[in-house]
Structure formats: C-alpha cells, structure tokens
C-alpha cells in the first residue's frame, strides 16, 4: 500500500480564531502538493499539524493508514524546511547535515558517506567545513535541504522555503527543489503565499482562505477555471466587474456584456472576472467586424509597464481601471503610447462568472 497522507476533518482553533476549519485532503505518495493562500489562511498551521508541532483541535492526520495525531514530531519521519533555514549556527555544514543521522545513532562510516552524498546532491561539497553564517541565503537553504533529506524521510514539508531569498535565487532554487522531488520520488508538501511559485512547482495546488480549502487542482485547472472570485483574484491577476443579470448578458454601468458562462447559473447579481491577457486592445477603427459588438468598449491608456516579454497596460474605462497584458511584439506593432484612446474587446468565452452572495465583497 502506498504511503499516502490523509487529513480528515482537520480543525485547529486558537482561542476565538478558527485557524483551520475541517480540512479534508489526500496526498498520494510521491506527489508534490502546494498549499497556497494569503498569510493567515491556515496553511502553515496545517503543515505544523502534519509535523506534530501543533495538536489538532479536531480531526485526524492519517499516514500510511495510521492515525498519527499522538505521535511526537521526532517519530513522524517527516523532514521539514523552514523559511528562516533554521540551521544550527554552532555547527558547520557537515555537522548540520549529520545531525539527524546522529540522532538515529547511525554508525560513523555510513554516516559520513551519507553526508557526502547529500553534499554532492546540493552541490556544497566544498563548503562542508563552513559555518552557516559564512554562507549566502541560497546556500543555507540548500544545506537545510540536505539536512532534512539526509535521514531519508518519506515526506518533506516545506514552509515558505524561498520567501527570504532574492527573486533570482528563488527561481533557481525552485528548480533545484523540483528536480530533487522528481529524482527522489519523495512526497512534498509545500506552503507558499506566492501563486506564481505554486503554479510553477506543484503537481497539485490547494488554494486556501480563512482556514478552508477553496479549490484544489492542477496548476492549469486553478488558473484557467477558478471556481470562485477569491481564487480568480488570488491566483494570477483578474479584472472584476460587478453587475446585474439581463438574461444572457451582465449589465455593468452602460455596457451589457454577453457572457456564455451564465447558462449554468441562476443568480441575479454576478461577478465577472477576466484575465488581463484575454482582453484585446486595439487602436480605434482597427476593430475586426466579426466581434460581438456588446462586448466592445473603449478607454484611455494610463500606465504602461514593461514586464519583459509581456507589456502590462492600465486602461481607464469610464473611470474604472482595467489591466490588460499584451505580448511585447504586438504592443510594438500597434505603436501604443500613454494617453492614447483604444478599443477594448472582452471575448465572451473569456469571462468567468460567479454568483454574488450578499456576504462576499468585491476583491480589491
């Protein structure tokens, strides 16, 4: 039987705060799962309950068919990577990596071999005599990886491991982690608030908000078919409109957008979401004839930001700011400048629609 990790009805209450609210989740052996959510959504608390540093108020942590709620962290055979690296400052790299092996009373010789193997794995063999303070942040986190992997844990838990690092090193180390996961076939549970990181690295993304799982799925599913306005807003960037339903259209200010997605819903008040790259920006008069006229609006370019291969425009549409992403080549071809008037086209099938309950607020 595969060593799956299962969370059943997992709940954690701190005083009056429900940090984790009856979460159910199954993680298969060898899977790379990302818990994604804004700070305070309970993702780290879930991780800490899996590690054993927090005791669940209710529910079960089940591993390999056994309820492990009562097990001490030492006995769980899970490796942990911390945001702050958490290396032992009084030990050098070699001693840090061998710590877990010493605790398991591994004999000297195989221990040294194992440490060297780990040092090679993370490419720090030449640094083995150094102390953590003498290493860069990225190197320190690689030592932490080697240290956590040395005892050969069956699950590796990573708590915002890259948040303290520079953007460049973050991307590079992300690749290292992904490669290690695939090579070793180890189960990884990775907590982050960085949606880009989550989409880039995980087999499966679990989006959380206020202690609850909002949606889980592959990165592509999450990005393309967010099930709620929260996910649409939190994962990637979205433009939002709040309007009233008029049969197969949604009325927003003076416009009435045709929204095919309405077919499957019955709500009166509707959120519309659309990704910036789905909106087409055109010079006035260059609009093709074959478009749905009701989804055509116009606006003025307020801000132009170069993001490398993509150019992000902020366009004022009758006072509302709309974010549009264009491929850099297109942008150059169209020769757009700040202050230019443009036509905007919202392809009907690109709209995601959500019923607007009275409780929900429009995301900012």
């Amino acid at each position, binding site marked *: 039987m595969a060593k799956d990790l299962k969370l*059943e009805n997992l709940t954690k209450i701190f005083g009056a705060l429900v940090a984790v609210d009856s979460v159910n989740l199954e993680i298969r052996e060898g899977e790379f799962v990302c818990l994604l959510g804004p700070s305070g959504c309970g993702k780290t608390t879930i991780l800490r309950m899996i*590690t054993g*540093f927090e005791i669940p108020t209710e529910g*079960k942590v*089940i*591993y390999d*068919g*056994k*309820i*492990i*709620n*009562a*097990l*001490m*962290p*030492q*006995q*769980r055979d*899970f*490796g*942990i990577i*911390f*945001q*702050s*690296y*958490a*290396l*032992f*400052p*009084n030990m050098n790299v070699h001693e840090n990596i061998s*710590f*877990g092996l010493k*605790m*398991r009373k591994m004999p000297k010789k195989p221990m040294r071999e194992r440490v060297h193997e780990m040092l090679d794995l993370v490419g720090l063999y030449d640094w083995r005599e150094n102390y953590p303070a003498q290493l860069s942040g990225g190197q320190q986190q690689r030592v*932490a990886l080697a*240290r*956590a992997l040395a*005892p050969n844990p069956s699950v590796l838990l990573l708590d915002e491991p890259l948040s303290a690092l520079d953007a460049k090193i973050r991307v590079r180390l992300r690749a290292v982690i992904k490669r290690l996961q695939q090579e070793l076939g180890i189960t990884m549970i990775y907590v982050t608030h960085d949606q880009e990181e989550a989409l880039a690295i995980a087999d499966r993304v679990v989006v959380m908000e206020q202690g609850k799982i909002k949606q889980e799925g592959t990165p592509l599913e999450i990005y393309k078919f967010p099930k709620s306005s929260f996910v649409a807003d939190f994962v990637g960037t979205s433009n939002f409109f709040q309007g009233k339903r008029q049969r197969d259209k949604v009325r927003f200010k003076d416009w009435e957008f045709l929204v095919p997605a309405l077919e499957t819903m019955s709500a009166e008040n509707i959120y519309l979401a659309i990704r910036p790259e789905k909106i087409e920006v055109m010079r006035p008069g260059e609009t093709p004839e074959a478009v749905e006229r009701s989804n055509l609006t116009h606006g003025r370019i307020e801000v132009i930001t170069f993001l490398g291969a993509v150019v992000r425009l902020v366009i004022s549409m009758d006072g509302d700011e709309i974010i549009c992403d264009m491929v850099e080549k297109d942008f150059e071809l169209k020769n757009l400048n700040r202050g230019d008037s443009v036509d905007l086209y919202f392809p009907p099938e690109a709209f995601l629609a959500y019923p607007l309950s009275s409780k929900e607020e429009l995301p900012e």
Partner: protein
Amino acid sequence: MDKARTDTFAQPSIKFKIDKFIVIVVTVCIGIALVFFMLFPIGTILKMSFIKEGSLTLENYIKYFQNPRISRSLYNSFYVSIITMAITTILAFFYAYALQRTTIRGKGFFYIVAFMPLIAPSIMQALALILLFGRNGLITAHLLRISWSIYGATGIIVSEVLYCFPHAVVILYTTLSAVDTRLDEAAQSLGASSLKVFWKVTVPAAKYGLVSAAALTFNLTITDFGNPVVIGGDYNVLATEIYSQVTNLFRFDLGATISVILLVPSVCAFLINYYITKRSFALISGAARPFLQPSRKFKKWGFTIYCGLVSFAILLVFATVILGSFVKVWPYDWTLTLKHFHFPSLGGYSSIWTSFKIALAVGLLGAFFTLIAGYIVEKKRPFGVDFLYLLSVMPAAIPGLVMGLGYILAFNYPIFFFYGTSTIIVICVVVCNFTLGTLSSVANLKNIDPSVEEAAISLGADSVRTFIRVIFPLSMVAFVQNFIYFFMRAMTTISAVIFLVSATVHLAAIEIIQLDNDGWTASANAMTTCIIAIVVAMLVVLRLLAGNKGFAGFGGATSAPSG
C-alpha cells in the same frame, strides 16, 4: 464513520512518552524548589510577625510603632532612600547621557569605571568614606582639621549613591541607546535650542528609564545592609534594625515584623520597576542608530569634566580602601605593610577560600538553573508556566536580609540537614538573584529562532538532546554572563548571608563587618581588597577563556535589583 475504525492509532514509543513528561517534571521541580526556598521562608516570617501563641494578632506591629527608637527606622529608611534615589538617578542620567549622546573622549574608560562598584561588597563605600571623612578621617580631621564627620544619614546617602550608581547607569544607558537620536535632530532642525531639545525631547523620551532607575535605586538603598551598618552609627534604618533585633536581642518576632515592614516598600518599588521595564522594552526598537553629530566644545568639556568628577569619586573609593589595607596606620603612618592581611579574626583566609568555593558553586548552579528556567518560560511554555515565571522574578522583590532571616526561621530544624552548612548559603544566594539570571536567559533565548529548535526535533532529537546540543551552545554567552553575575553576587553579598554564616562556615564579605566591628578597620579594608582581587581575577580569566563574547552584555547582566 466506518472508515475511522479501520484506521489504527499509531502510539508514541516509550522513549518519547517519557520525553513528553521531562519538561513537566523539570518545571515542577524548579517550581517546588522556588516555593520551598522562597515562599516557605517568607511565609514563616509572615507567620511569625502576625501570629503569637497560636492566634492572629497585630501585637508585634503595635509594639514596633509604639517604640519611638525602633519605629524611627522606618522614617530613616525612607529618608535616605528617597534622597539617594533622587541624587543617583540624576547623576546617572547625565553620565549615561554623556556616554550615549555626546562625542566626548574616553567613553570606554568612563564606562568601565561606572561599573566598578559592582565588583565589591556594598560596604566598601562606607569603609572608604570613613577613612576619608570619619572621626579620624584623612580629609576632615587631618587636612581640614574640622570636627565634622560623615557618620549618620549623610554617610549612608553618599555611600549608597556610590553603590547604586552602576545599577542606575545600566538602565539609563540602555534607555538612551534605544531612544531615537533622530528625534533630537528633528527638533533641532525645527529650530529648538539645545537646552529645549534636552528638556522637551530627550528627557520625556527617557521617562520610563528614569522611573525604572529611580525605583531600582530606591529598592537597593532601602534593602542594603552593609553600608548603613558601618557608617550609620546611631542612625538606624530598617535593615540594621532587623539585624540588631535578631542578633543582639534575639527578638526574632520583632525582626520578622520589621522584615515585613521592609518588604512593603521594596515590593512596591519592584512592581513599579517590573511594570515600567516591560513597557519600556516595548519601545526599544532595532532601528539602526544614525550618526551622532559632534558635540560643541562647551558641551564636550562640560561633560568630560562631569564624567571625570564622578569617575574620580568612584576610583577614590577603590584607591582609599586598597591603600588603607596596605599602610601601617591610616592616616598617620603611611609605611606600606602587609600586616593587615594577617587576619586576626576566626575565619581569616579560610573564609576567603570558602567564599570562593561557594561563589563558584553559586555561579555554576545559578547560571544553569536560570537558563533552564528561562528555557521553560520562553520556549517550552508548559501548563502553569505563568506561575513559574512569577516565582522566578519574585526574588528581586525580596530583600536579601529578609530572605536570610526567613531561612533561619524556616530551616533551623534538624530534619533540614543542609542548615548551618555552606549548601544553604549557596541555595540562598542563587534564589536571591534568580530574577536577573532568568530575565537575561529569557532575553537571550528570545534571540534564538524557534525554527532552529523545531528543526532539531524534526530531525529526531528529544528534549534533552535538543537542549544539550542546540540550546545550550547557543546560550553560552548568556551562561557566561550569568555565571559572572552570580559569582560576583556570591562574593560580595552581605545581607543575604549574614544570618546564615555559622561557627563552621565563614564568609569573606561577612568577615569585613566582623573585623570592622571589632576595630580592625585596616584588616576590614584588606579583606575587601582580597574580594575585589578575586572578582577581578575571575573576570580576567573568563575574558581570556571566552574572548570578548562573555562580556558583550557585561553591563546588562549586572543590574541586581536585590540587596
């Protein structure tokens, strides 16, 4: 829930089941030890003062207030403590200001001199003042040829100011380092004059530190025994009255009563200090300190002279006592001699040796137990941790003399085998100074990233191994600091141990009082010199062993709130 039934529960192995209880067991042990060695003795004192022949009565208190000679000690104590508090706080504030906010030269020197009084017993100041301003003083009787002498209230106040000075400087130095100098600069740039900036910005910003320093000074003075007993003459204060009731008149009930009366103001001062420290620490931010603009010439000279004078007074005390132990007959015959080092008292050199051994034990045990207490309080937080924390900080509110009296009242029974041995002295000194040790351990442990400990645990280390392999090595600096602190306290404290020395256990600091009492003033000086020499030697040895590490917070670890 059929599914749940098919799941089996994984049970922790025996080893980790035990591990779960280790923290609780250690917490309970330390808690019981503190209750037994602190609350029990204090409770015994309370019982003795309030209960007579089995019934609750205020008889002792009525007796105290009806005897004008004894009850005057309350007024006297407040009088000298309040004046000492005012003078010391002001002197220390300007001294700390000079060290933190001006660009005078010789700051390192002034800093070290300010902390020198900590290495000597709080009796040295009085000894020095008597040599200089006493009935046969060098300055009064011989240079100025006047009949005035310093005994009494004046003597107590001057010696207490000199004794309390470093404690007040520690607090104000830290406070001023925390207050952002950019505030001063901002005010100046808005057109405020230097004097106005000082009164309207600098002083208000340091108000918590000022109140805290004042409360601590008050507490140190009202609970001090060594200086008033030597220089007070007929001027009795609460501490000396407790001693004379117990030692001369064997009135344990009155001694206990006066102890309770002394406990009231010292607990109040402690509470103020505790409350203020908590608040002011919140104000200390880790903000980088901007460049200190060069002080103007007038300010620079003014503060240099000021610090010079204060340092001179402190150094003069040391020079006088040390010189006084080497000259034949102060102030007539200045021939150098070692004869005063042939101690005529019972204890003699063996008392120094005993003191040293006890101080080593106190240093190691004190540093060790306060580290564990700090670890439990800051990191482990088991059930009932608030009670343990309360017990750990409480000793600072209890004057050493009261604790010592509590010990003889509570433990003077054959079943307490440690009574009358050096063990009880070690325990008493450790307990009396437990507060500061714990607080500095906590402060150090706060700096250790909680993830580091969790990393060790997740890698399979149990509580004990986590502590030994990770927490202890990372707390080495605090450990050494606390060792120094406890060692110094054990070498120099008088009040905590004066009731505990016995026919078989003599202590160097107590020998000073006995020598002075018997008229061997020069030998009392010599004994003081020996204590200073041992403390200095220990500081030097540790500095060589630990590099500069252990001294990083030398000042911070040495503001003892108990007499």
